[in-house]
C-alpha cells in the first residue's frame, strides 16, 4: 500500500536518542568517548573567522593599484592592530612634505592584497564559539575536530512548531487539563528558570508575564497567529525558526489557534513534572525537516543504547490516528477501513480516504493526507 499519509510526530516515554553536536567550523573537541556529560557541559569549541573588512588602500593613498606595491607596509598573514600603518608615500620629492599614510581601521590580520583592484582585505580577530551538550547523556563517538555524538534514554516529544533556541530547565505543569488556557495568575516567581506546560492555548499577555518572570520555555497546544506576530514584530512567511530572541522558547505541540493538547503528550508531561528538560523551538518544514524537541533524559545503562531503525509507521485497520485538519482537527480515532478507490469528499476533491471511528462510536470518512499515525 502506498503511504499517502503523514508520519506522526513522535511522543514517547522512552526512546534511545542520538544527537550530533557539531561545530560550525573545525575546532577542538573537549570531551572523550565514554564521558558522561550534562546538558551544560561544553563539548567542543572553536574560533570562527572574524569579520572581513575590505578596504581600498590604493584609493586612500591616491595611487593606482599597480603602484600600490611600492608603498605597502604590510603583507598577507601579518597581524595588525588598529592604527598599524598599512601604506605610506614619501611625500613631495621624497622629503616627507605632504606625506600620506594610511592606518588600519581595525585590529586583526591581513587577508589579501590585490594589485588589480588596490583593495586589501583585513580580517578582525577570531570569535570564540562553544557547543554545549544540550542534553544529559553519554559521549558515544568523537568526530575529530568537529564535535561529538551524545546518546541517552529519554522521554521525547516532537512539537509541530516553535520559536526560540535551545534551553534547559525543570518541567513545571501549570495546566489542569489538556484543554486549559493558561491563566496569567499562575505565572509568578516560582516559574523562574522553568519549562512550563500550558494546555490548549497561551495568550500574548501570559507569554509576556512568563518572560518577565524568567521562564525558560513554554509548551502549549496552540498559539494565535496574531500573538506570534506581536511577539516577533513580524509575520512568519516560511517556517524556518529557532533564532528568535524573545526571552524564552515556545513549543506548540498541535498548531495555530486554541487546540487541545494530545492526551498522550499531556499525560507524559504531567508524569514527568519537575524533571530536567532540554527543549528547543527550531522548526524547518522545508528542505530537511526539523521539528521542535522536548527531551527529558532518564537514567540508563550503556547496554540500553541501541536505537531502532527508522521506519514509516503503518496505516492499517486498527491503527490509532490523529486528525490534523478541519473538520475534527485534533481528534483521535481508530482506522476501520482503507478503501482503495478514490473517493469524493465535501470539497469534491477525489482522494484516497480512510474510514474511521471516534471513541464515542461515531464513524467518519477522511482524506488519508489529513491524519497522522499515533505510534503505539
Amino acid at each position, binding site marked *: 500500500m502506498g503511504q499517502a499519509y503523514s508520519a506522526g510526530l513522535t511522543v514517547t516515554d522512552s526512546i534511545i536518542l542520538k544527537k550530533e553536536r557539531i561545530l560550525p567550523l573545525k575546532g577542538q573537541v573537549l570531551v572523550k568517548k565514554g564521558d558522561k556529560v550534562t546538558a551544560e557541559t561544553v563539548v567542543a569549541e572553536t574560533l570562527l573567522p572574524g569579520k572581513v573588512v575590505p578596504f581600498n588602500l590604493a584609493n586612500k593613498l591616491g595611487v593606482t593599484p599597480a603602484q600600490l606595491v611600492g608603498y605597502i607596509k604590510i603583507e598577507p598573514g601579518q597581524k595588525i592592530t588598529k592604527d598599524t600603518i598599512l601604506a605610506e608615500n614619501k611625500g613631495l620629492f621624497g622629503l616627507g612634505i605632504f606625506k600620506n599614510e594610511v592606518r588600519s581601521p581595525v585590529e586583526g590580520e591581513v587577508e589579501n592584497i590585490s594589485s588589480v583592484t588596490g583593495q586589501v582585505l583585513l580580517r578582525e580577530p577570531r570569535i570564540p564559539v562553544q557547543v554545549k551538550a544540550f542534553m544529559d547523556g553519554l559521549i558515544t563517538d568523537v568526530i575529530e575536530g568537529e564535535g561529538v555524538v551524545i546518546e541517552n534514554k529519554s522521554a521525547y516529544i516532537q512539537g509541530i512548531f516553535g520559536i526560540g533556541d535551545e534551553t534547559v530547565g525543570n518541567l513545571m505543569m501549570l495546566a489542569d487539563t489538556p484543554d486549559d488556557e493558561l491563566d496569567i495568575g499562575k505565572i509568578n516567581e516560582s516559574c523562574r528558570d522553568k519549562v512550563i506546560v500550558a494546555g490548549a492555548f497561551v495568550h500574548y499577555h501570559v507569554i509576556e508575564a512568563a518572560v518577565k518572570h524568567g521562564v525558560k520555555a513554554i509548551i502549549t497546544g496552540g498559539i494565535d497567529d496574531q500573538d506570534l506576530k506581536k511577539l516577533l514584530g513580524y509575520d512568519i512567511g516560511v517556517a524556518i525558526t529557532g533564532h528568535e530572541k524573545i526571552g524564552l522558547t515556545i513549543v506548540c505541540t498541535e498548531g495555530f489557534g486554541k487546540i487541545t493538547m494530545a492526551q498522550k503528550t499531556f499525560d507524559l508531561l504531567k508524569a514527568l513534572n519537575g524533571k530536567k528538560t532540554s527543549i528547543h523551538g527550531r522548526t524547518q518544514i522545508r*528542505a530537511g525537516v526539523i521539528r521542535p524537541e522536548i527531551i527529558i533524559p532518564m537514567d540508563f545503562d550503556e547496554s540500553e543504547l541501541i536505537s531502532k531503525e*527508522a521506519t514509516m509507521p503503518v496505516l492499517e485497520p486498527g491503527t490509532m490516528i490523529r486528525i490534523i485538519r478541519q473538520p475534527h482537527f485534533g481528534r483521535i480515532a481508530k482506522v476501520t477501513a482503507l478503501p482503495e478507490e478514490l473517493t469524493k469528499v465535501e470539497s469534491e476533491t477525489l482522494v484516497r480516504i480512510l474510514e474511521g471511528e471516534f471513541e464515542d462510536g461515531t464513524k467518519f470518512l477522511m482524506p488519508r493526507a489529513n491524519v497522522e499515525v499515533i505510534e503505539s
Partner: protein
Amino acid sequence: MQYDEKRLTRIVATDCGSTTTKAILIEWVDGEFRQTIRGEAPTTVEAPLNDVTKGVINATQELEELARLKYNNPNIKFMENGEFVIPRKGDIGIDAYVSTSSAGGGLQMMVTGVVASMTGESAERAALGAGAIVMDLISSNDKRMNHEKIERIRQLRPDMILMAGGEDGGTVKHVVEMAELVAGADPKPRLGSSYKLPVIFAGNKDAQPEIKNTLAQKVDLIVTDNIRPKLEQENLGPARDKIHDLFMEHVMQQAPGYNKLMDWAKGPELESVPIMPTPAAVGNIMQAIAKDEQIEVVGVDIGGATTDVFSVFTEDYVFNRTVSANLGMSYSISNVLASSGLDNIMRWVPFDIDVSELRNMIKNKMIRPTTIPSLLEELVLEQAIAKEALRLAFEQHKEFASGLKGMQRQRDISEAFSQSTSGATIVNLMTLNLLVGSGGVLSHAPRRNQTVMMLIDAFLPEGITRLAVDSIFMMPHLGVLSEISAKAATEVFRKDCMVYLGTCVAPVGKGKQGKPALYAKLELPDGSKFEEEIPFGEVRLIPCEEGKVAKATLKAHGGLILDKDKNKELSVDLHGGKVGIVLDTRGRQPFVLPTEKVERIAALKKWMREFKVYPEQILV
C-alpha cells in the same frame, strides 16, 4: 541516445518534489505511447528516513498495485528486492527509469555580476533557466557596502555560485573585485563540508587569469564562456550546461539517497540518464510546445514551496523562467498572505469568514503541508490564496522577462514621447496564444472550471488566449523522458498531459458597468448558436468540446479593443476545451473589483455561478 517503441514498452518516471514523489507509468499500448497509471507518496529525503529512494519505492509500489488492478494480472512487478528491474521481462520489470528532482530545496544558487541589471541579470537568467533558485544577486553596483556583501555571501551557503561580469575586453577590475569578495567570504557549500564550493566563472575572458589567481585555491573554480560577451549579446548555454553538470556531480551526490537514485536512473541499454532539476525539465517541454506550434506561451507551475513561471515570447522564441522562491501553497502559504495582504486574498472570497480563523488555518497548512482541504469552504479559501500567489509570481516574471538592458536603441519619432526604454518586459498578454497551468492546486482542482477561473483571475489574459492545464502534473516527467525518447514524450504530452480547457476572450480597456462591452456571435460545432450583446462587468461560459472550434464574430464597444492591432471587430475561430469558451467583459488595464464588500461578494457570486466553479450551497 534516443529510443522508440522497439526498446521502450514500459517506463517509470518520477518527480521527487519537496513534498510528494509523483510516479507515472508510460506504456506502449495499441500502437502508441500513453501514460497509463500514476501513483504518489510523501518524499523521504528528510529525517527520519533520510533517503529519497524510499519515497520512490512507495510511489512505485502504488503504481504496481494499480497496474495489477488495471490489467487484472497479479504478476506485474516493476521492482524486485527494492530496485527496478531493467530491462523488462514479460510482467516483470521496466525498460527505463527516469527522474527529476526538486526535493531538499532544489538547486540553490547565488549569482554575481558587475552591473545588476546587465551582467547580473544575465547570470540570474542562466541560473533560473538551469532550474535553480537564485538566493541573491550580488553586483558591484547593488548599493551594499563591500563588507555587507561578504557577510551575505558567508551566510548564504548556496549549492554553487555563478559569477558573470564584464563584456569580453571590458572591465577586469570590477570582476576581480567581486572575486576578491567571494574569496574573502570563503563560502561553504550547503550540503556537507567535505568538498569545495563549485564556482562557475562566466565573465570577461580577459579576467580569467586574475580570477584563477584569486579563487582557485579557495573554491572549486570552473571557467566557461562569457555569458555576456557583448552588451547586445547573451550567451547562456555554456553556463547553463556547466550548472547541470555540477548539479549532478556535486549537489545530488550530497543529498540523502541520491547516489542510489542516480544509479537507478537508466535507459534500456542500462546507460545512466541524468536526474534533472524539475524546473529545467518543465522548461524543456514549454520551449518544445512554443517552437512546435509557433506560438507564444506562458506556463506556470505552482508548488508547495515555490511558483515557477515560464514564458516564450517574440519571434525568436526568447525563453524566460522565474522562480518565486517563497510563493507556494503549503510550505510558503503563509508568505503568500504576508506578501499579498489579507485584503487581496479576501477580495476573491464570496463569503464572510472570521479573519483570525483564516490566519490560523493558513499557518496550520504551513506547518502541516501535506494536508488537503476536505471542506468546501477551505477549498474556496485555498483557491483564493492560489490566485494571489499566481498573480504575484506573474508580476515578478513580467518584470524579469525583459529585453537586454543597457543597449543603445534607435528611436523613431513615434517613440520620442513614449516611456519605453531598453529592457522593457517582453511579456505581452495581448499576443499571448497559450496559458498553461500546472501544479497541485491547478492540476488537481476538483472542477476544471476552478482551474479556468484561477488562471483568468490571476493572469488576466487579454484578447484571445487558449487555456490549458497539465492533467496530472507530468510535465517534469516528460521533460526528462525526452532525453531518451522525444517520441514517447511528445506523444504522451499531446494525448495525456495537456488538457485544453478552452479559450478566454477578454476585451482590453475601461468600460461602464452595465453598458454594452462585447457583441459576440458564436456558431458552435453542434450547430447551435450563441449571440449576445454582453454588458461590461460580466462573464459568460459557453460549452464547446475539446478538439472542436466555434466560428465567432466579435465586436468590442466603447474604448475596448480585442487584439494587438487594436481591432474592435474580429471574425475568428475559438477553440473549445473541457470547460469551454469564456467571454470576460470585466475589463483589463484596469481590472477592478467592487470595493464595497456587499457589492463585491454579490459580483463574485454572480461570476462564480456563471463559471460553475462551486456547488450552489457555498454561493447562497
